[in-house]
């Protein structure tokens, strides 16, 4: 079988699926001649229906859109800009560390830059990136729905994000913050920087994540196509469900913490001020009760993307669908039990340190189940090495490497040496950059054909992904050694003997930045000159590959019939037929009377 370029996975002669023109199949005849006619003309409409971004192209149509796909694209652009800003800040930080003494900026500026790097990367990129961009775009299509449950609420999340971003930038200009992204009192109550606008900005942004969470949960519960039970949903949707649960439950506690620190700093209410009877460790309890589930908000969507990409590119059913689905919820709920391991040396009681230490070990087990199932699913698969899969390898190695250092840190006595040193910086960057960012790149490349209707160039893709992987290792592996050597976090000056490793790490950031810029260039290039994407470039079985790429405004002209399990690669790709319960009257009523 000659390997054809560009469109390798569609078997020759197979009827192209429902979205595009479908030659008559026996399924239609069985549905009766009269209905065949309506079916045909509706499909006619589907073929010539314009992609979602071409429906109306006025600025106002984008600003007031309630189409989940456009909102996904807006979030994708906004979070990419946030990644750019955060990345530049990171590069500046690393420049500063080239020499133990002042290099490019003063101590006060350095403190504000590492705080901003933390705030922007955590809240403006890592938390909203995959759930708000890809979750909004693909969860409704994967469920066979036309849109999310509350479209107008979805638009509100865009504006909450924008207002949050603007208030934070105003806060940055009007004095910034130099407390680190953790805002520990009493320093956050006494700092000379005007902290409050940034806190309010992140508070408003918190509402954006809560509302996205509510939207996704209700969509998953109520808008699944007929016949798709919970156990037949794609695994990415399970991950989005888990993430939304954490977002809805954990983010309000962050909102409260931010309000309390604003009152502390602004009006000197002294909730935790020891001079007025307060206790500082209570703040750390409240903050980390949110912030540890927050790191699972950052990693669960990445796991969802990896499940999709591994199974689609290996053309293989998951080793055990239940294992991945249940471990998603395992991580979501166990994530709430382990926040104490951030406070082993903070003066918390030894008893609590023990309790939190052992609970943290169990969270590691759920992640291990997922990794075991992914690698197990590649066994006896038919794996085609494409760019998303290279990012999956980077994810697998870096996530397990970073995750295991998490287990090492949860062995309480080791954490006493490592806490607040560069070992911890390397550990969480291995998870946030190594795992979440690589999964974000994998998601971009995996869904690029579907989102933009264009194919990116495979050769450049693999080259860039290898560069990103090597750049990452060169940047963060030396930081593990720095941490072992005892180099504390957030240090502007540092002892001379650490300089060699710092220079190596800074050089690594340049390679990482180079890899990412190359990816940015060829992706933008593919927007204009890329080959037209077929409907199903990877031959995947999930529903989003059964609509034209890019999809039309209402995804499915008629709600599809769910016949094939989303990961059933043991029989050929079946054409997704309209739902036999399809009743033209209801459909016409629905399709004509569109919500705006």
């Amino acid at each position: 079988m000659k390997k054809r370029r560009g469109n390798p996975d569609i078997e020759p002669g197979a009827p192209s699926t429902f979205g595009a023109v479908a030659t008559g199949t026996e399924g239609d005849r069985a549905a009766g001649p009269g209905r065949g006619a309506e079916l045909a003309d509706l499909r006619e409409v589907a073929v010539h229906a314009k992609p979602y971004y071409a429906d109306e192209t006025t600025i106002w149509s984008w600003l007031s859109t309630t189409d989940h796909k456009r909102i996904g694209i807006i979030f994708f652009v906004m979070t990419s800009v946030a990644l750019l800003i955060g990345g530049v800040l990171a590069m500046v930080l690393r420049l500063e560390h080239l020499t133990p003494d002042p290099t490019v900026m003063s101590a006060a500026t350095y403190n504000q830059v590492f705080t901003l790097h933390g705030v922007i990367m955590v809240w403006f990129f890592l938390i909203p990136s995959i759930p708000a961009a890809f979750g909004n775009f693909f969860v409704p299509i994967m469920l066979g729905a036309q849109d999310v449950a509350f479209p107008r609420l979805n638009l509100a999340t865009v504006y909450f994000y924008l207002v949050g971003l603007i208030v934070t930038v105003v806060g940055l200009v009007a004095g910034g913050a130099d407390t680190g992204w953790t805002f520990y009192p009493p320093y956050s109550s006494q700092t000379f920087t005007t902290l409050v606008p940034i806190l309010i900005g992140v508070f408003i942004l918190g509402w954006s994540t809560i509302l996205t969470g509510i939207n996704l949960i209700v969509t998953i519960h109520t808008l699944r196509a007929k016949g798709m039970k919970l156990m037949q949903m794609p695994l990415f949707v399970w991950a989005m469900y888990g993430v939304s649960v954490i977002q809805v439950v954990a983010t309000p506690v962050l909102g409260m913490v931010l309000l309390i620190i604003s009152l502390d700093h602004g009006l000197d209410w002294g909730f935790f001020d020891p001079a007025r009877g307060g206790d500082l460790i209570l703040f750390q309890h409240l903050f980390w009760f949110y912030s540890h589930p927050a790191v699972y908000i950052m990693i669960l969507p990445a796991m969802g993307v990896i499940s999709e990409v591994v199974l689609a590119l290996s053309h293989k059913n998951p080793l055990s669908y239940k294992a991945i689905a249940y471990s998603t919820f395992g991580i979501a709920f166990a994530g709430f039990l382990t926040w104490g391991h951030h406070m082993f040396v903070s003066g918390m009681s030894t008893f609590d340190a023990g309790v939190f230490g052992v609970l943290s070990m169990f969270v590691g087990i759920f992640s291990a189940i997922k990794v075991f199932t992914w690698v197990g699913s590649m066994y006896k698969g038919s794996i085609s090495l494409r760019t998303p899969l290279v990012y999956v390898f980077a994810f697998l190695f870096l996530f397990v490497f970073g995750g295991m250092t998490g287990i090492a840190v949860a062995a309480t006595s080791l954490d006493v040496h490592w806490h607040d040193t560069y070992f911890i910086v390397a550990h969480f960057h291995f998870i946030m950059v190594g795992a979440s960012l690589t999964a974000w790149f994998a998601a971009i490349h995996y869904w690029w054909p579907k989102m933009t209707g264009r194919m990116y160039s495979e050769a450049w893709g693999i080259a860039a992904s290898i560069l990103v992987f090597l750049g990452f290792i060169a940047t963060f592996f030396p930081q593990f050694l720095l941490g072992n050597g005892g180099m504390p976090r957030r240090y502007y000056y540092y002892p001379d003997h650490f300089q060699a490793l710092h220079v190596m790490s800074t050089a690594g950031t340049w390679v990482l930045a180079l890899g990412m810029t190359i990816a940015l260039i060829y992706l933008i290039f593919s927007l204009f000159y890329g080959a037209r994407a077929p409907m199903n470039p990877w031959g995947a079985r999930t529903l989003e590959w059964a609509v034209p790429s890019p999809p039309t405004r209402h995804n499915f002209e008629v709600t599809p019939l769910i016949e094939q399990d989303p990961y059933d690669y043991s029989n050929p790709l079946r054409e997704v037929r309209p739902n036999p319960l399809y009743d033209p009257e209801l459909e016409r009523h629905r399709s004509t009377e569109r919500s705006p």
Partner: protein
Amino acid sequence: MYTPRVQPFFEDLEKQRHAAKLGMWIFLGSELLFFAGLFAIYAFYRTLYPETFQLGVDHNSKLLGSINTALLILGSTMVASAVNFLRLGQRRIATWLVAATAASGVLYIAIKSTEYGMHFSHGIYPGGVGHFFAENPDPGFPVFFTTYFALTGLHVIHVAIGVALLGWKAWWIRRDRVDPTGAYRLGIVALYWHFVDMIWLFLWPMFYLLGTQR
């Protein structure tokens, strides 16, 4: 007669109703967690300063607290029966009940502000400011009253939002002459009011009953 329009992507009205109720419940879950931070602060500091908290609680007037509790329980009952009457088709009673609930909310806010006034007059301000703290320098008092102002203040803001929503709903029922199938729209706001009442059911013993119990 107003009959709610089925959104194009919901199969039927029942599914749309369930979606609205589930969405509201999730939102109330997140609001409860929003209060959880302050509940944890109260519990933590009560364990740290048990006697001072009891003295602080004695300082709040049990009478005003109890009137507020009765008001909110009454309001919660009225709005629940309003939804029921709307389902029975009797719009007029439903409108009156919703308006009455809004009024009880306004009364609650009035009583609350008098309480705050009394505290300010005794020299108790949030953050341990005021001559009361100079007279009895026990470290537990500033923390107790700051938590008191934070928790009850946040609750009053939620009551104010609830009153606005209820007023708007009362006006909506009368203007659109809502029919029974549209009752679930009022049900959503009723859920929010029940939530506000439930939070106060816990705040009331915490700040008014668990004193030195003389």
